[in-house]
């Protein structure tokens, strides 16, 4: 019989496989803050903008996920865009309008929008 450590290793391998199947290795990973505080600041609408862009086929090769609160209360809603091998880009005070601009400029054209970056 498998030991607990063997079982957990197996479970982790399966979990990683499932995450990859969901598109984790896409070019961009987008994380939208979805804790109570972020939602109160309007992050649910921001998430919808990204979801719709994916559904409509405007955004391809992206992995969209929600995340908990990283702690930047005064800059919420926050999102992170992670591209493997590059420094992750963190944006603050994102409105649905800004999200649309991030899709057009950052995700489609590769331009990092410096004014909204969190430093």
């Amino acid at each position, binding site marked *: *019989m*498998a*030991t*607990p*450590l063997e*079982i*957990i*290793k197996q*479970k*982790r*391998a399966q*979990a*990683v*496989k*499932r*995450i*990859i199947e969901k*598109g*984790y*290795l*896409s*070019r961009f990973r987008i*994380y939208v*803050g979805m*804790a*109570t*505080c972020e*939602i109160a600041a309007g992050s649910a609408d921001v998430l919808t903008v990204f979801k719709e862009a994916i559904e409509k086929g405007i955004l*391809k*090769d992206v992995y969209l*996920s*929600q*995340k*908990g*609160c*990283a*702690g*930047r*209360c*005064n800059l919420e809603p926050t999102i*992170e865009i*992670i591209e*493997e*091998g590059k*420094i*992750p880009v*963190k944006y603050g005070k994102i409105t649905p309008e800004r999200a649309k601009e991030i899709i057009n400029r950052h995700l489609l054209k590769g331009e990092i929008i410096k004014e909204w970056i*969190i*430093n």
Partner: protein
Amino acid sequence: MNNKEFVIILCNGSSCLKNKSNDIKNELIKQLEKNNLLSKVEIHLSGCLGMCAKGPIMIINPGYVIYGNLKVENIETIVQRHLIKRELISEFIIKEDHLFNRFFRIFGDVNFFGRQMRITLRNCGIINPESIDDYLSVRGYEALAKVLNEMTPAQVIEEVKKSGLRGRGGGGFPTGKKWELTAKVEAKEKYVICNADEGDPGAFMDRSAIEGDPHTILEGMIIGGYAIGSQKGIIYIRAEYPLAIKRLEKAINDARAEGFLGNNILGSNFSFDIEIRLGAGAFVCGEETALIHSIEGYRGMPRPRPPYPAQSGLFEKPTLINNVETWANIPVIILEGADWFSSIGTEKSKGTKVFALAGNVVNTGLIEVPMGITLRQIIYEIGGGIPNNKKFKAVQTGGPSGGCLPEQYLDTPVDYESLIKAGSIMGSGGMIVMDENTCMVNIAKFFLEFTQNESCGKCTPCREGTKRMLEILERITEGKGEVGDIEKLERLGNMIKKASLCGLGQSAPNPVLSTIKNFREEYEEHIKDRKCRAGVCQRLLRYIITDKCIGCGLCKKVCPVKAITGEPKSIHKIDETKCIKCGLCYSKCKFSAIKKD
């Protein structure tokens, strides 16, 4: 979508290059080709990853696994075991850094996080809290597996004791000792409780921790259950945290489906399950005996201790009750070891503490800092200082049970003993920064109003005493203070502290006593000079019309008590005996001719 399965990041900093990271890269490509994996793996070279002492470094994504001290001959093992068999190679994993690196690889270049250390919040903000797969991929439930695999309950308790972890709810009782006491009691049934009844005004540490990483809490509780011999865990959380509750429910269901909760966890003989109980949001239910009464279905009221819950708790069974943040530390202590954990912090306070930084500070937010950091570092380096060039006045720690510390205490290290010595407490983690525009009498009144409201009424000192104190404070802020009021507050406060039944009453006078101690002159000004220097206490303000007045008559028109007189086009006047200090004239004047004094 590309069809890559792994992304490998190799550190290409000068230190790692010196340690032959180029040879490692060539060997990696060779091995990948040999095993026909080259198309499935993406290789990136990065700049220095800051782990030079452990170089050369390799990070494998997904999962953010960091391997270090690599030699060329290790690469074949990594390809065979990690990439093909998909297992982690524990000998190569960098222990000291990897927990934070996951977080800091994303957020590490931001100043705000530079002084922080993320142990309990290690996954908050980087994983999807609603996905058990995400948690598993960052070594989730591995601590539980390790415990079930190779540790006896006594060894688990010993490890927690050795770590030096103390209760994060505010009391600071040694966690390992609590576990030991509960484990020692012989009983068929025992309970494990997670106290998530967070109620301090302005505090949201537990909510964020649960919403960001609910499985960590569950894992900690299951390990606790194993250590003390319990089969039943309960999370007591207030109903006004709907999202946290929803995520906990999902986490519990997912954990059951994966076999981390229920019978024979991970194939062992140990069985454990967790359920959620909702609290109605009474502050006193954060007190452990009141919390237990509330779960039992009675009114949430405390009872005298002993017996402590360890002997007789929920349904009179031995009960282990810890706070959310305390539980979140457990998986890390088990995985990284007590020696590592106790290397962080001060002599008597080990590890980190989460604070909800709020008030007059540039970067408000949720932070986790190593014990021993000073208040100044938190407020000025992480918090970015006081906004609008205002002067710092005080910092309040410990919420309504804590005290206000003025500037001379800014270099106090944050640990249980130092904060008590300075006249405040660690508390559960509220930290409110106040600038010069804050009236300390009013702040004391605010906190006392809160505790007075939340007093359960069982014991007289707390029920009546806080009411009388509040009445005096209300008088003082309304300009009706009397000589001797300060002494009365001190006498009452000390009496309530000594005579109250539970922690709520015993700490309720703290905000008043600490502001009297540190800002006595402000109380005296309120009472003797009828003056509030911060301009907060409405009733103590005087409104004066200056010669900027053009006599438009608007103030005269809006004054609800007809206290303003004057002819058109001449300077108006306020009759102070009639004025109720409502401030309406001040806000309506278009020429800034009315001044507050």
